[in-house]
C-alpha cells in the first residue's frame, strides 16, 4: 500500500429537496482514501452512507443535490466535471457494485453483451472479438466456471451469487483505481457472502485498487477493511483503523453497535445491550449531536451544540463531547 492520496472528500454536503422539506442526507463529511486502501463505511439505513458514495460517482438522482464541499480524485475536482467527462470517468476510473445483482443486470441482454458494452464504451478502439476475449478473462478472474458458455446466457439463468460475480467482473473490466461496493453481500446467503468477500479480497490484493466497502455488517468490516468510518445521521461519528474501531472504540454509538451484537465466541449466555430509541427522523434533525437523544451518556451540551472533532491518535478521530473535555469546560464556563 503506498501512501499517495487517491480520493479526498472535504466537507461534502448532499441534500434531498422533498415536498416535506430539505433532508440533509450527508451533512459535512471529510475523509481521504489512499491508493490500495480498503475503507469500510458502516451505518444504519438512512445514515447517508450510500448517498455519499453515489455523489462520488455522479449517480445522485433528483431531488438529491450536492450542496457543498469538494470531491478530489487524483488531484482533479470531480464536482466540476461535465456530463461527458463524468461518463468517461465512471466505469473507467471508478466503478461500483450494488446490493441487488438482479436489478442491476439488464434481463434482455446476455451477460457477454453487457460485459463487452462496459469495456467498449471506454476502449473505443477495441475490436468486438478482443472485447469478448477480455470478458471471458474477467469471468475467469471472478471464478465462474465455463465462461465461454456463460457469456451467451441471460442473467435469469444464473444464481444470485453468480450474478454478483458477473457484476464484479463488469465493474473491474476497465481495471478501475477505485471500486465502490454498496452492500454487495447483503442480499446473499452467508456461504455465498463468504465466497464474494474472499473474491473481492483476492482481486484487491492482485490489482492493488482501492475499495470503499459500504455495509451495516460489522463482521464483514472486520474481515476486509483497513480503515473504518462509522456514520450516523449524515455525519461521521468516528473514523479509525479497523483495530481501533473494534478494540478501542471511543464514540458511544460505535460502542453501542459493538455491544448490541451477540458474540460468536461467547462461552456463556450474555444478554444483549441494545441501543435504545429509534433512528433519527432526518427531516427533523435534533440540534446538537444527532445521536444525543439515544445516547446513555448524553449531557446537556450534547443536545444544544454539535460536538467537535477530537483527534485521539494519528488516524483515530471521533466527534463527541465526552472526549472533548477542555472544549466542554470552556463551554460550561461561558454559560
Amino acid at each position, binding site marked *: 500500500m503506498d501512501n499517495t492520496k487517491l480520493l479526498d472528500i472535504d466537507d461534502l454536503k448532499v441534500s434531498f429537496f422533498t415536498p416535506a422539506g430539505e433532508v440533509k442526507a450527508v451533512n459535512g463529511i471529510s475523509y481521504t482514501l489512499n491508493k490500495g486502501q480498503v475503507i469500510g463505511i458502516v451505518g*444504519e*439505513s438512512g445514515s447517508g452512507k450510500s448517498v455519499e458514495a453515489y455523489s462520488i460517482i455522479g449517480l445522485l438522482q433528483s431531488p438529491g443535490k450536492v450542496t457543498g464541499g469538494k470531491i478530489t480524485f487524483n488531484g482533479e475536482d470531480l464536482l466540476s466535471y461535465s456530463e461527458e467527462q463524468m461518463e468517461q470517468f465512471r466505469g473507467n476510473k471508478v466503478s461500483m457494485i450494488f446490493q441487488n445483482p438482479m436489478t442491476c443486470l439488464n434481463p434482455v441482454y446476455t451477460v457477454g453483451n453487457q460485459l463487452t458494452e462496459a469495456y467498449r464504451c471506454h476502449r473505443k478502439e477495441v475490436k468486438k472479438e478482443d472485447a469478448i476475449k477480455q470478458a471471458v478473462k474477467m469471468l475467469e478472474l471472478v471464478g465462474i466456471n465455463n465462461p465461454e458458455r456463460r457469456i451467451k446466457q441471460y442473467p435469469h439463468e444464473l*444464481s444470485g*451469487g*453468480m450474478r454478483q460475480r458477473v457484476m464484479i467482473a463488469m465493474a473491474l473490466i476497465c481495471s478501475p483505481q477505485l471500486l465502490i461496493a454498496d452492500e454487495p453481500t447483503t442480499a446473499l*446467503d*452467508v*456461504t*455465498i*457472502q*463468504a*465466497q464474494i*468477500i*474472499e473474491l473481492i479480497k483476492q482481486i484487491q490484493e492482485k490489482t492493488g485498487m482501492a475499495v470503499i466497502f459500504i455495509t*451495516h*455488517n*460489522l*463482521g*464483514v*468490516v*472486520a*474481515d476486509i477493511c483497513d480503515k473504518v468510518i462509522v456514520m450516523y445521521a449524515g455525519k461521521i461519528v468516528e473514523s479509525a483503523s*479497523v*483495530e481501533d474501531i*473494534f478494540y478501542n472504540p471511543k464514540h458511544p454509538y460505535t460502542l*453501542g*453497535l*459493538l455491544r*448490541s*451484537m*451477540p*458474540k*460468536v*465466541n*461467547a462461552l456463556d*449466555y450474555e*444478554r*444483549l*445491550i*441494545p*441501543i*435504545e430509541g*429509534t*433512528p433519527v427522523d432526518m427531516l427533523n434533525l435534533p440540534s446538537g449531536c444527532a445521536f444525543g437523544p439515544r445516547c446513555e451518556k448524553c449531557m446537556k451540551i450534547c443536545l444544544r451544540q454539535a460536538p467537535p472533532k477530537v483527534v485521539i491518535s494519528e488516524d483515530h478521530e471521533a466527534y463527541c463531547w465526552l472526549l472533548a473535555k477542555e472544549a466542554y469546560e470552556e463551554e460550561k464556563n461561558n454559560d
Partner: protein
Amino acid sequence: MTEDKQDLVVIKNLKKYFPIKTGFLKKTYVQAVENVSFTIKKGETFGLVGESGCGKTTLGRSIIRLYEPTSGKVFYDGEPVYDDEEKKQPDMLYYRRKMQIIFQDPSASLDPRMTVADIIGEAIDIHKLAQNKQERFEKIIALLDKVGLNSEHANRYPHEFSGGQQQRIGIARALAVEPEFIVCDEPISALDVSIQSQIVNMLEDMQADIGLTYLFIAHDLSVVRHISNRIGVMYLGNLVEVGESNEIYKNPLHPYSKTLLSAVPVPDPKVSRARQRIILQGEIPSPISPPPGCRFHTRCPYAKPICKEAPPKFKELEPNHYAACHLFSN
C-alpha cells in the same frame, strides 16, 4: 437441562411439495421440505438455520398449517394438528389460539388500511376473547404496553411507524390470543442493527414472563445461537443436524454445519483474519430435482461413493446431538 422438559410440538416425517407444472401425465414438484422429524420442548427456543431456499420458512409454516403439508404428522401437546392417516380434521381455530407466527417483513404483514387497534383487535374478535368494547380496548392497550408502545399509538396506521415499531405491532398481534407457541420467521432480519437487539431482548423477556415456546427461524447464525436452546440445521429440505446450541457451535458434526459456521462473519478483526474458512464450491442445487443420496454430496468436501447412492439416516451420535451423514456410519 432440557431433558426433563415435556415435548410440546412433535414433527414426524413432514413433507411439503409445491406443484409447479401440472401436465397430463407428468407433474413436477418443488420438494421444499423432505422427511423432517424433530421435537420442540415446552418453554425452549428451537432455532432453525440454513441458506435461503432450504425450506426453513416452509417448514415453519407447515407446522402451524399455514401451508397444508403433503404428508407426515404434526402433534401439538400430544394431539394431532396434522396427520396424513387421519380422516377427521382437528379444530384449527383451537390450535390457532395456541400457535401463532411473527413474519419477516413487518410492513408487508400489517394491513395498511387498518389501525393498530384493529390489527390487534381482530384476533381478539375472532376468538371472542373480550366481552365488551371496554375490555377489548383495555386488552389492546395492555398488549401495546407489553411490546413497548403506548396507548396513543392505537389509532394510528402501520405506515406511521418505523420498521422496529411495526415489528412490535406484529408481535403484539401474535400475543393477542395468548398463545403458547410462536413461530418467529426471521423476525429481525429486516431491521436495523441497533434495533435487532431490542427485539431479541423483548422476545427473551416475554418468554421468561409467560413461558412461551419459540421456533426461531433465521439466517443470522450468531443471533440464533444467542437466543436458542437447541438448533436444527437445514439443507435443501432436509434437516441435517440437531443439537444443543453451544454444542452445535463448538462441535458441529455435519460437514454442512461446519461450513455454514465458518462462513459467519466475526466482528473481531484478529479472530476473523486468523481463522480458516471452508469455502464451499458451487451453488445450492435446485429443489425441483435434488441430487440422489445425500443431498449435500455435490458440494461436500468429504463425499464418498455411498453418499451418491443412499440418503444417510438421522442418528444420535452424541447425547442429544443428532446428524444425518454417512461419515459417521460405521
